[in-house]
């Protein structure tokens, strides 16, 4: 269990902001921090990992104090057993995939974990290649594996997928879920993608100006969760066209494009690029084996 009580005055482009966060993350949970840029999400992860010191407050992880301003306790980043994945991959360009992972090993740590991780995120074919010969998605798989070499209990993911295209994101989301379960991690993700959040997380914290604005299950926070409409997805509007007295709205859901009829009273609030929830009663769809 992670208990955070963080106070920090942050300087940003918009001026000074006072971050005051209190949250408790259960062991094994997958939690997402959601909110505008500059809200304090990355600073929260940096304080948890020891890269930034809070002005006040404490951090305890599974009963051990990592930071306590009053008791002058402040573990160094390396003592905190955290895996951290950033949006840019931060791989060593002069080392192969395998060497990048081995470099992260602790002294006296058995090398078997490297082989295990290479198997889990399917890097066997790529293990002797250098990073600059890999695609964005492949590099991010290497970064994910490297973050787990020292077998951390906590995995921090700071918008790891935002530079990737949709198909690649979906693949990486699968790998992230797989390592989260296999290595029994407590994972904290920063993401803006509602579909991604619904797919991955158990709990969401919406952060605004350094405070928790709302928290809850992703289904409750993003609207349709408690509805009796069981046939539901999230997607992105790719087109809106008037067709007589109604509108035809084209929505990309995963790799598929679907068309939905919308009344003018709804269509006028939509524009291309909007993230939307799509729902219907489960009684309409027909199923046919292909």
């Amino acid at each position, binding site marked *: 269990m992670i208990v955070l009580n963080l106070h920090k005055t942050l300087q940003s482009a918009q001026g000074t902001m006072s971050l005051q966060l209190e949250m408790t993350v259960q062991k094994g949970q997958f939690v997402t921090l959601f909110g505008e840029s500059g809200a304090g999400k990355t600073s929260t992860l940096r304080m948890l990992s020891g890269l930034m010191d809070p002005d006040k407050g404490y951090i305890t992880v599974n009963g051990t104090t990592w930071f306590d301003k009053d008791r002058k306790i402040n573990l160094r980043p390396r003592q905190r057993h955290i895996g951290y994945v950033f949006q840019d991959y931060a791989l060593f360009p002069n080392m192969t995939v395998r060497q990048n992972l081995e470099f992260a090993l602790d002294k006296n740590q058995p090398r078997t974990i490297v082989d295990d991780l290479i198997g889990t995120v399917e890097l066997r074919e790529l293990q002797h290649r250098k990073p600059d010969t890999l695609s964005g998605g492949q590099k991010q798989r290497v970064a994910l594996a490297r973050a787990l070499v020292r077998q951390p209990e906590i995995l921090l993911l700071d918008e790891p997928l935002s530079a990737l295209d949709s198909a690649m994101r979906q693949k990486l989301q699968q790998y992230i879920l797989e390592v989260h379960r296999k290595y029994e991690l407590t994972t904290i993700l920063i993401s803006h993608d509602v579909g991604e959040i619904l797919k991955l997380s158990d709990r969401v914290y919406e952060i605004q100006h350094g405070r928790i604005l709302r928290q809850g299950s992703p289904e409750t926070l993003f609207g349709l969760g408690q*509805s*009796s*409409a*069981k046939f539901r997805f999230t997607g992105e509007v790719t087109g809106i066209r008037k067709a007589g*007295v*109604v509108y035809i709205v084209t929505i990309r859901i995963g790799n598929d494009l679907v068309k939905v*009829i919308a*009344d003018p*009273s709804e269509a006028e609030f939509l524009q291309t690029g909007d993230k939307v929830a799509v729902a219907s009663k*489960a009684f309409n769809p027909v199923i046919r084996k292909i």
Partner: protein
Amino acid sequence: MNSFAGHITDIRSSDGLSVITVKVNAVRFKAVVIDSPETASWLVTDNPVQVQFKETEVVLATGENPAVSLQNRVKGRISAIEKGELLSRVVMRTDIGNIVSIISTDAAEQLALQENTEVTAMIKLNEVILAP
């Protein structure tokens, strides 16, 4: 989407399905849902709930008590009708508020629908969405 606030007056569950009765003013709506009080904590008698249904799922009838299987019925009077080439958008004023229906223009003409026509809106119970 047509959306009205009501409260639950009856719940009948069997094999994971439930038929929920919701009262909106004097109108009773029934909805069949793939949920039960065990799977959805908000399914409790007297709880407030939204009754929602899409405009394209609203059937319109003229005349008194047509003999059809649809039990969700709301009487009202047409306040606006916009006719397109294929489809028409009918707005009707009822005791629970405005209901919008999208039907074929052919049907609208066959029923001679115009402003002030008295109509009954009907919605199949499997098209009614409930949301707390």
